[in-house]
């Protein structure tokens, strides 16, 4: 298939255009995010990090990736 469809996703509040069928772990790897130090939410649902290689992204998916920072 030469004609790869693009989809729009929102990650941490920013809209990004990515390849259709991109898997969640591919996106995380691309962003160089260490998975052992973060939690991932897809459309308001927490995604178990063990299965992120099975999760395919769809148009309009909303992803939140959080970690710990300094706080009181």
């Amino acid at each position, binding site marked *: 298939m030469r004609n790869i469809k693009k989809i729009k996703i929102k990650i941490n*509040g920013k809209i990004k255009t990515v390849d259709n069928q991109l898997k969640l772990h591919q996106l995380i790897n691309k962003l160089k*995010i260490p998975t052992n*130090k973060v*939690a991932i939410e897809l459309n308001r649902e*927490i995604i*178990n990090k063990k299965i992120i290689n099975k999760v395919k992204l769809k148009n309009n998916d909303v992803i939140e990736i959080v970690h710990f*920072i*300094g706080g009181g």
Partner: protein
Amino acid sequence: MNKDNFIVAKKKFNSRLIVGTGKYKNMVECAKAIKISGASIVTVAVRRVNISDKSKPILMDYIDPKKITYLPNTAGCFTSDDALRTLRLAREIGGWKLVKLEVLGDKKNLFPDMIETLKSTEVLSNEGFSVMVYCNDDPLMAKRLENVGASAIMPLAAPIGSGLGILNKTNIRIIRNQTKLPLIVDAGLGQASDATIAMELGCDGVLVNTAIAKAKKPFTMALAFKNAVIAGRQSYLSGRISKNLMGNPSSPTKGII
């Protein structure tokens, strides 16, 4: 000597001083101040990873969660739903079940919304979290939190970051007398002696952030708080003398020349 252990949610901690990791100039300063404070628990916030700037330092690279207990908080949450979402995410990061719940009700005074706080405490306890609850200094609400499964009661001394010290000692004492749960004064302390007062009132610990992080010399203030907590605890356990209106000479009155 009798062991005087500080136990929260069945876990023993070496220090009764809990410190926040916010408001420091940088991570290096934060890590050094925490080391000097001797704290074995630090509060941390849950926030979005900066996906566009990877050079941003990561807290875990400076403060090792294997050596020091991370206490994820819900700072900035104004509803029960937001707080629950935040702590469920915190648990997902690496299995954290000991958490600090803080649901705020007003952006200016940062007082807790106790209705939302109570609701969240119950839900989180039922989900297996050990919830240390930031609350107002109301003994009735403290009792209700205990009844729905709180692991520690953490009344404010004064508004967060205000540095006003303990405004209502009587209420803190009443809460102390009614609960066997760990009682930790959280928020509003301004100087080391405030921590000593909290400990002398019978609190099991104190939680400090701004008073250390924003002191002109954070490192010496961290040490001052460490010592203040130890001094206050020893003073409390030693049993103070009663207060008298009149004087009572320290030297014998017999044999005066």
